[in-house]
């Protein structure tokens, strides 16, 4: 469960990612309702109960608070992830680099607007070094 501006969520299981449709800005009530409804529907369609829920590190994103509530409901482990780290990991996976590739020395240029970084401050565009796991 990522950011809240162009929100989607993603179920991960058995080497597959089931990405929801683009839902939109969660600050819009109709979009937030959609987000909740689609989470229910996708969980039902794919018979999916999360064991781990990754959320954006920003505690005030509506997607983060929803994720925290869902984690409590399902007894799942909640893992906050830095916004830029999430972008970088997604880019690596999109580029076909998996966990097994040991790509911990990657350098990513994350041209994002704002997101909460590892040091608790808001980051803009950043060069990030690391990989998917860290």
């Amino acid at each position, binding site marked *: 469960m*990522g*950011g809240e*501006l*162009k929100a*989607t*969520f*993603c179920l*991960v*299981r*058995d*080497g*597959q990612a*089931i*990405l*929801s*449709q*683009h*839902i939109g*800005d969660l600050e*819009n009530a*109709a979009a937030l309702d*959609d987000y909740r*409804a*689609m989470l229910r*529907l*996708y969980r*039902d*369609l*794919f*018979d999916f109960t*999360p*064991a*781990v829920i990754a959320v*954006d590190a920003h505690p*005030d*994103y509506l997607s983060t608070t929803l994720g925290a509530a869902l984690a409590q409901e399902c007894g799942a482990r909640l*893992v906050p992830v830095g*916004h830029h780290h*999430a*972008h970088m990991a*997604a*880019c690596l*996976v*999109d580029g076909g*680099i*998996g*966990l*097994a*590739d040991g790509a911990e020395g990657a350098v990513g240029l*994350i*041209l*994002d*607007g*704002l997101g909460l970084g590892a*040091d608790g*401050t*808001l*980051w*803009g*565009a950043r060069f990030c070094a690391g990989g998917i796991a860290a």
Partner: protein
Amino acid sequence: MSRLIVGPFNRVEGDLEVRLDISAGMVADARVVSPLYRGFEAMLVGKPALDALVYAPRICGICSVSQSLAAARALAATGSVPVPANGGLAVNLIHAVENVADHLTHFYLFFMPDFARAVYAGEPWHADAAARFAAVKGTAAQDFLPARAELMNLLGILAGKWPHTLAIQPGGSTRAVSRAELARLGALLAGFRRFLERVLFADALEAVAALSTRDALLAWAEAARGDFACFVLLSQATGLNRLGRTDLRHMSFGAYPSSDGPLFPRGLFRRGVGGVLPVDRITEDVSHAWYQAAPDGAPRPPRDPGMPPDATRDDAYSWCKAPRLEGEVAEVGALSRQLVAGHPLPRDLVARDGATVEARVVARLLEVALVTMAMERWLRAIDAAAPFIDHTPLPAAGEGAGLTEAARGSLGHWVAIQGGRIANYQIIAPTTWNFSPATPPVRPGRWNRRCAAPRCETGRPSRWRYSTSSALSTRAWSARCIDGGASHPRAGPCAGGGLPAPCLAPGAGAGHRRQRRQRWRGRGHPRLGEAATLDGFQNRLGEGAPPLARIDTIEVWPHDGPAPQGFTIAASAAGTVRTGIVPDAATCPACRAELFDPADRRQGYAFGNCTHCGPRLSIVRAIPYDRANTAMAAFPMCPDCAAEYANPADRRFHAQPTACPACGPRLWLEPAPDAGTDPLDAAAALLRAGGIVAVKGIGGFHLACDATDTTAVTELRRRKARDAKPFALMARSVDEVGRYCQLDDAASTLLRSPAAPIVLLPRRPDGPPLPDGLAPDQDHLGFMLPYTPLHHLLLARLEGPLVMTSGNRSDEPQVITNEDARDRLAGLADAWLMHDRAILNRLDDSVVATTSGAPVVLRRARGYAPAPLPLPAGFDGLPPPWPWAGN
């Protein structure tokens, strides 16, 4: 250039956000946007006059007493209602409690916690500041919150409740206070003074009130140990006397009247000079606000009725009107009030540094001291034996203004009464002075001016936010950015998705007898047959699989017992049985051929589909994916459709959404055309005439107009209040797209794919001209092909491409129900082309670009979701915590 949206500012009285265009780290342009229409002024018209006392204070839950007071004074001013001395004193006390509480709430809960943030961790003062002022955990909150609660007991006694008391009336206060209660009030006030003198100031209120220069303030702060002194020292350390500087006229309506004159007088102040406030020269400008312009185009004074709202204006960006004094911006608030009142300390601060964050905070706390001392005087002056209210009735007709000061600044209500009812009610709230939209030529609101120069420190947004935010009860802060260079979530081309039923149809004619049981993700099909023919069958499964089918695995094992007769799909058993749901798919060539085949029973029918195409995710309510669990449950199949559905050799074998004119969804146009006119013909005629038609599609409504008609395109942009975002286009064929845009094989394949996304394509310089308003300043156009029979039928009636933009007002999701379409698209569409197949799940059109022949999905929705994406090695069998950014 990037855009930073700061917000939401959680105002109790509505949302507010600030949009900053940032270039090279500097704010190039700022817009203050109030995205919520309140409507109080409109609500009040026609109500009995005294109803204003009930309705108007609901504007705000923080400064509700100020609102009550302004309403009561406006009503009183329509006639001549005398207020007894006790009434004035009691109302002053009620008002003062609220304002003092607001100042301290701002100081302790909103402003000071900023210094506890980790960005200051390297500063020598940080550890102490964090221990004292950190949100929730700091020791200051533990001191302040009980003190504020005790202070609010004054309101319980004097006003009955807070917020939204009805004690305040045009003639005074309904709540007479007994001698015993006066004693109790005195004790509460004494307790509050103790808190101020021990915790906030650590000195006598009189000593604080006597500070007259910045030097005296600094010297005092060195010696004192209270929270105010702490602020003064932190302000020195962080340069708050250089932050948020303005050089505007300061304005105050004056507050706390008494027989000796008001505690804080009405007036103006700028650059050392005071002046008289010409209240009659206050106007409200709607140049960039969503209201109709006055017939003469001039800003209106609030004693005139306001213009009605107009949400379709595309030159507007806020629901706040822009109040101006003699055409100019004025600053309001505690600092303005104290400058006008002539207190030497704020005047010295402003003379040295201008109006800054430091001066504003000092003025608030100075005011806390001054007002608390005044409250003690007012309380002593109350005579419990004398009346608190005068019951002179209001006149049946008249005009009046109620002007007062909320903690945050000047508040005015203007009322006109006719026949005992409200004929006009206008409110100018302090926030609209400080956070108004721009007025021509370019006269930005105060906040805008403050922002135009400073660097944008994205890591530290809160101090400049709070510097003006006496108005704002800001709960939490977050900042977001829409960046022109933002990375986009990318996804590779998507596999078709698992549709288990039809993949078996090719084998049906080969004499096999098979049984297949639907299972989770279509895996594990028990079947019967001989080994040799089974091999052939498996090959044919792969080769003959229809476009949407995806075979995950084929499992074969021996079968004991009698062979079943014929091919069946076993009914989905309840419980563990799961099959996947696939994305919605564009009309397949076979269905399209039927659509235009005069001999076919579905010729001209807008809802035909088969196992290769049609709605899927958009109509599913639950699993298993059977007709009963979709929006098609409302349409029982006719015998013909049922026969196709049951025949393994048919393209519609187990096609859950299958339909025909005899049994399926119906199409109609609203408003209804002449009897006998085909709704598609009527819609096409409207579009040809430059009209805008709402068209119900697969995942939502579109707004359609003729893409070659400049007037229609301009009108659509105006109605949608959409400034420059490009409109999506729909053309009847790839060839027609190719007239306007450069196409390569990859793009053509994408356009024709079952996902039928909007594909971003470079414009052909030699293409036919199109209106500039389609995609201002873009060298690409976004085209898609018709993806439902309805689209094909509509486009076939037209000569050129259509704009097909999402059916919504800007920033809202597209509407999906007929009811919402009628309601929310009223004023946007001229007609509605609708049907009775419900859209259960909203799906935007997907947007795809190509890079070196490879598709890059920019928005993944209709046609792609919910197909799974394969992940690279290492993600099997986890449960993994791996993040997937979606922003």
